[in-house]
């Protein structure tokens, strides 16, 4: 028998007489426990609070229900403007992140042999803090940088840290998302985003944007409402995407030529005098310049470039004009306008300009400028005062003067690391290596950085290149600051902790930022708790923390779009800008003109295009076992190939093929379909994880960005993710 004297010190702490309890009340056998547990199986989980999904940038709020200390159920909060009470697949899957077997549980430091080993938090802070101080002392604070995806506390706390350090180099993922779009829109309408009053629209055209494959449940609800109310919905996309279930018409445009299509439609509208002359007269500048340029962009000209019949271009231009102002072209997001082509930003400007011709801005059924989100008032407590403003501009701002400042190119930053101008970089839940540009190049640059730190929940492609990895808690395990955001009806949301911290050696990002600040000698700017700050912020809106914890989200319908009211354009001219002289700073014409794509396929080449599928947020969620199982069940790593092109290459549906170019090669199965433009291959984004630590994602599918060069568009600095050509051959052929 085991001799008790050998047990020495045990780890279970017991009350006096605990051993007697075994005999007195009886040991709880597993069988008895299972039976009791089964009896409780029908017990409903209890409400634990309002959280907000961490599965993408939308942060849709939901009510969390817990049973046995574990998240058991989520129910969407209807008042959240993006989630509208309906968590998406990613929301459900990502809710299990707290329990992931692949979570990071301790601070890690890269060893000399390239592995990682656990270190204490004290050691991590000491070493990182010392290095940051040394970099600042010898090279100045601009030799540091931050890349983060912007997630409330993370946003506020890490930006505060870097501001306190005197560093302006704070970047986001826009370079591989919507940098060109937001920047192009800024130059036309004075803000980086716009929406549409879909529910009241008579006609909406989507250019390369599929709500059913994309991010927000609210968008799906809105396009459904448009459909239900009889709107005519047009999808311009090389691929017959998942949103076609809502649409009336599909135009399989040659990818990268959407700008030509819009210019030709604009030509038709102006040629036939269908533009909104009153709006143009009262609210705009530069129309005459653009009207002159448009003369050359005939539908016949565009047909040769886009593959869309001139007659269709004519018809659709007139359809939109005749239904104006309850008609618009949707703003797009990532594909086409966001970051895909050299002409992406100009395509965004063209969309805004076309909507200007329609005169549909802030009209029922038209394009809408989002009203400002409720802003927190001034906080009187001196502890909350911001650190001294940094006078320097972030690196890249000078080179890309017309880019939205908050989104200046993170790829430009990486070149600065390569050139030694930036010596240290901190990431916050940003898988840059996985998706911002060519992973091999980014990995090489990042591993050469003198200091690299990643604050993460999982060992992403980026984390594994860093020298230090600091484990964040999952979003379910922490409180957050309140955040308000602009939408058709602005919204205020608060995420609350709903489950206990699972891994005791993980820390919430706001705590990490505060403790790093202390290690760097700027801790005085963090002399408050998160709750104190949250309370103070909410008080300025007449709310309390207790109230917001109960409500979760509040919408502000009285602050929604004021249809028909005069618009205060945020542009330098104070007007809608068909032409903007600032564009000449980057070699563009003041008005929007045709720019052909950087590359064009010829012979047996294909343009590589990609996009989301509704079950994944790029590489963010691919390690989730439930979501990746859907990938496996439905063979969702397949590329799409046009049937006629496949026949030429002797490829049949389901074949294994090799996709290759000078940068990469990989094997995958193919879906052969009529529903794809013949000049391109469509590859789902987010797969091809190169981190063996993410055991569910590793080796599944192909890495889209591995086929794309490390490059930036010359105007806005975006990654040009679809300016890449590949060839395809059948494996074994």
């Amino acid at each position, binding site marked *: 028998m085991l001799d008790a004297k050998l047990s020495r010190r045990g780890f279970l702490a*017991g009350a006096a007489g605990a051993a007697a309890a*075994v005999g007195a009340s009886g*040991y709880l056998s597993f069988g008895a426990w299972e039976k009791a547990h089964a009896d409780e199986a029908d017990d409903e989980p209890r409400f634990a609070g309002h959280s907000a999904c961490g599965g993408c940038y939308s942060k849709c709020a939901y009510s969390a229900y817990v049973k*046995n200390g574990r998240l058991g159920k989520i129910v969407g909060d209807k008042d959240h403007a993006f989630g509208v009470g309906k968590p998406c697949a990613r929301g459900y899957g990502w809710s299990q992140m707290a329990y992931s077997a692949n*979570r990071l549980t301790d601070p890690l430091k890269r060893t000399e042999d390239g592995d990682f080993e656990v270190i204490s938090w004290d050691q991590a802070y000491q070493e990182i803090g010392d290095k940051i101080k040394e970099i600042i002392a010898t090279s100045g604070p601009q030799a540091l940088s931050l890349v983060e995806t912007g997630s409330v506390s993370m946003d506020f706390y890490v930006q505060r840290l870097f501001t306190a350090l005197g560093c302006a180099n704070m970047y986001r993922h826009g370079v591989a998302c919507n940098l060109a779009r937001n920047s192009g829109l800024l130059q036309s309408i004075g803000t980086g985003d716009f929406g549409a009053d879909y529910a009241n629209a008579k006609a909406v055209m989507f250019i390369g944007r599929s709500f059913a494959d994309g991010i927000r449940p609210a968008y799906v609800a809105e396009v459904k409402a448009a459909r239900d109310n009889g709107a005519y919905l047009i999808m311009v996309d090389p691929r017959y995407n998942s949103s076609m279930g809502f649409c009336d018409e599909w135009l399989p445009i040659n990818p990268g030529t959407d700008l030509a299509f819009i210019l030709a439609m604009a030509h038709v509208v102006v040629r036939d005098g269908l533009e909104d002359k009153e709006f143009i007269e009262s609210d705009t500048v530069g129309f005459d310049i653009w009207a002159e340029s448009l003369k050359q962009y005939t539908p016949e000209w565009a047909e040769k470039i886009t593959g869309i019949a001139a007659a269709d271009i004519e018809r659709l231009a007139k359809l939109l004009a005749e239904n104006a102002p309850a008609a618009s072209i949707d703003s797009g997001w990532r594909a086409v306008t966001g970051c895909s082509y050299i002409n992406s930003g100009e395509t965004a400007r063209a969309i805004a300009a076309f909507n200007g011709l329609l005169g549909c801005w802030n009209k029922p059924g038209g394009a809408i400028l989002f009203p400002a989100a409720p802003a927190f008032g001034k906080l009187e407590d001196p502890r909350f005062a911001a650190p001294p403003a940094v006078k320097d501009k972030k690196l890249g701002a000078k080179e890309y003067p017309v880019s939205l400042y908050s989104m200046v190119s993170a790829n430009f930053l990486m070149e600065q690391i390569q050139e030694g101008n930036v010596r240290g970089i901190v990431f916050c839940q940003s898988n840059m290596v996985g998706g911002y540009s060519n992973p091999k190049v980014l990995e090489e640059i990042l591993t050469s950085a003198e200091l690299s730190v990643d604050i993460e929940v999982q060992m992403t492609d980026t984390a594994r290149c860093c020298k230090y990895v600091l484990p964040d808690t999952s979003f379910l395990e922490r409180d957050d600051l309140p955040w308000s955001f602009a939408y058709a009806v602005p919204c205020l949301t608060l995420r609350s902790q709903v489950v206990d911290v699972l891994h005791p050696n993980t820390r919430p990002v706001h705590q990490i930022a505060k403790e790093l600040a202390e290690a760097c000698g700027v801790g005085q700017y963090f002399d408050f708790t998160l709750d104190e700050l949250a309370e103070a912020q909410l008080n300025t809106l007449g709310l309390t923390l207790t109230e917001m914890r109960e409500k979760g989200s509040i919408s502000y319908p009285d602050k929604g779009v004021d249809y028909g009211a005069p618009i205060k354009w945020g542009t330098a001219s104070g007007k809608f800008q068909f032409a903007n002289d600032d564009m000449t700073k980057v070699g563009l014409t003041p008005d929007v003109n045709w720019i052909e794509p950087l590359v064009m396929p010829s012979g047996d080449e294909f343009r590589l295009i990609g996009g989301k599928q509704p079950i994944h947020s790029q590489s963010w969620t691919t390690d989730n076992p439930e979501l990746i199982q859907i990938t496996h069940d439905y063979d969702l790593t397949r590329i799409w190939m046009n049937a006629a092109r496949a026949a030429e290459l002797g490829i049949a549906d389901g074949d294994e093929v090799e996709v290759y170019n000078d940068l990469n090669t990989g094997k995958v199965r193919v879906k052969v379909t009529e529903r794809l433009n013949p000049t391109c291959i469509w590859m789902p984004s987010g797969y091809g994880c190169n981190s063996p630590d993410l055991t569910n994602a590793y080796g599944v599918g192909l890495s889209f960005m591995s086929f794309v060069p490390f490059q930036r568009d010359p105007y806005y600095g975006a990654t040009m993710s679809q300016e890449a050509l590949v060839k395809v051959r059948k494996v074994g052929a």
Partner: protein
Amino acid sequence: MLSWCFAPVSRKEWEAATDVDAWSELLGFLTGETKPSARRDAALRRLAVPPTYEEKTGFASRHFTGGLPGSALPVESLYAQSEAGPFDQAYFREPAWYMRDLAESLGLEIPASFAAYPDHLFLELDMAVFLHAANPEDARDFVAHRFTWLPRYVARLKSINADASFYVAVIEVLMCVVDAWREER
């Protein structure tokens, strides 16, 4: 004592436990608790030379942590079979709930730093020892149900790209003890 192989203990504690006399006593005890077999004998031979404190902490810092290719945290929830099928590799499942509830029913406290994994191997071993001191029959029942995951854990240890032979041997001997106890029930 076996639990200490997987638990964070101080240098002083580890060196006291692995001094020649103490360690020999342990090996002798384990010999007595198990039936002769090739598996047991091979494991005991490997256990003859325990790792130094540096070797132990070095191994733990690379393998008894989550999120790495070589991660091998000895937590039952990560290895136990469940009805969830392919999604059964996750923390804080039924084994954890049972251990938590069992500890509570006995007036025992799970250390705060391990609240997330009350089904950590070192806690399960501690529980076995505790139960045995009170009622050996209960301890046998506990051991019979709680250590069915060990073969999968051994497979994991063997798969990591590191010399995990000591820890494999600990588990192999433990499984021999469990087998012996089962036969005595």
